[in-house]
């Protein structure tokens, strides 16, 4: 446990000491700000049933920021260790392989979550300024953040796997971008395939991140999400572990 914490502290410090982190944070602030501004502008123009939270989490700005952030924060994780050769010092210290995988995953997840804090702050300040009704209930505010955590786990794990495949960060980012976007658009199969079967629709409903967000931002929790994403995350991390070990042993 202590070893895991040591590793985690190291991984986190790489995130928070690197300039990349602040560039990501900066773009995130801008995109979130735009999304927020867009939500308020929209609601000011015409009376609407929707809350600010709902509009925010269903805007294009939000989704762009959400999808692009995973490759950027995960590409470094394993690829850089292989590139620098530090994998050799890391893995000859008395640490278990799964501890290394877990610490990298957790650090990326924590960094990812911290990127959403400013937007949460927007909402809290906005509500505090006397627009409680435009925010909706507390549950309606927390539900999308819960979903961000759950879907984020899955996408961060995808990025971990991509990074374990290669020593080249750019290649890792490409693989992870393709996987992330691929999964995101999987539901579109239904629109492409003529009269798609109910079975196909059932399956793709599990990965319909747009739909999940739509219902969570209305405060409607979908229990399938809580089963599917955590178990997929676990599966992806097991695969990452295998790939990582395989590459090290072949090194």
């Amino acid at each position: 446990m202590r070893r895991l914490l040591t590793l985690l502290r190291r991984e986190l410090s790489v995130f928070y000491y690197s300039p990349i982190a602040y560039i990501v944070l900066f773009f995130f602030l801008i995109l979130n700000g735009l999304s927020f501004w867009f939500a308020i502008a929209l609601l000011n123009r015409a009376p609407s049933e929707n809350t600010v939270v709902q509009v925010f989490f269903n805007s294009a700005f939000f989704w762009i920021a959400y999808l692009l952030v995973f490759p950027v924060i995960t590409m470094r994780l394993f690829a850089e260790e292989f590139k620098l050769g530090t994998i050799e010092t890391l893995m000859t210290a008395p640490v278990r392989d799964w501890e290394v995988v877990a610490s990298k995953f957790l650090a990326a997840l924590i960094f990812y979550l911290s990127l959403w804090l400013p937007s949460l702050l927007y909402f809290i300040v906005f509500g505090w300024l006397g627009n409680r009704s435009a925010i909706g209930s507390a549950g309606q505010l927390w539900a999308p953040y819960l979903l961000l955590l759950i879907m984020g786990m899955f996408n961060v794990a995808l990025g971990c796997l991509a990074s374990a495949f290669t020593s080249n960060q750019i290649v890792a980012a490409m693989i992870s971008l393709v996987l992330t976007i691929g999964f995101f658009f999987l539901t579109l199969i239904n629109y492409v395939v003529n009269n798609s079967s109910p079975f196909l629709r059932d399956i793709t409903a599990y990965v319909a991140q747009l739909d999940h967000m739509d219902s969570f931002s209305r405060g409607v929790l979908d229990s399938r999400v809580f089963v599917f994403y955590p178990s997929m995350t676990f599966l992806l991390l097991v695969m990452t572990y295998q790939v990582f070990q395989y590459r090290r042993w072949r090194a």
Partner: protein
Amino acid sequence: MIKVEQLTKKYPGVTAISDLSFEVGKGEIVGFLGPNGAGKSTTMRILSSFMPATSGRASIAGHDVFSDSLRARMHLGYLPESVPLYGDMRVSEYLRYRGSLKGLSGKKLRNRVEVVKELCSVKDVENQLIATLSKGYRQRVGLAEALVHEPDLLILDEPTIGLDPNQIRQVRELIKSLGERHTILLSTHILSEVEMTCSRVIIIHRGKIEASDTPENLVGQIRTSGTVKVEAKTGSDDPVQMIEKIPGVKNVSVNMEDGWQQCSIRVEANSDLREAIFRLAIARHWVVRELTQERATLEDVFVELTQADD
């Protein structure tokens, strides 16, 4: 401390080591020698549990490096050949991180970090980013890292490469003094270093052990000949022709400098031809200003064992 049995490692297309067996006892300082590509780093990487062997077994302090690798690794301080370090960390920060990863904490951790910074003379760069260190300092930081948790066994892959002569001497002394309490397996291409520090030498060539003995015994047993050096004014005589007639001489090469013939004479094993050459010189009225027999060195042993069938 180290036990290696029939260890074989095959890379796709290359057999790096084949059927290697050796042991290193507690307190030994063993030099692991061999030409480039002999399989030294491969062996060390397997011993450090970085990668598994294709077949065979190896153990450290009684713990199998594959099946019980965590415990094996706790006994080990390892300096990889390329000395990989995190460039974004500062020296002290890196040593603290590695110490804590290897199970140190609190006061003990702080003490050990100070001690190894002192031992490896990196105190003057302790707050510098590792990315900005010179090659030699990186090497020293790597060594300090290997030592930080006071491991029973040190495996050092070319520890003195890239160091300046003062540092090489210092590291040599350090290794010698560490040898009093630690077991050390080190690879190097600087053979004089091995003669000075190691209690035993293992020479491998193409993944097989060619010799394993003390440096003195190896030099003593060497089958090749030594060399006799003669510097003389031979007048109109051709020294090569005349010296080659002496029984026991293998070949002679000559180099002319300022009227002096500098002859380098390869002679057969365990023979001393100085007397015969002296008598020849008297008979032919040569003026001699040097006549020495060079003793075989570890280098001769190395060359003999690893070039024989090329």
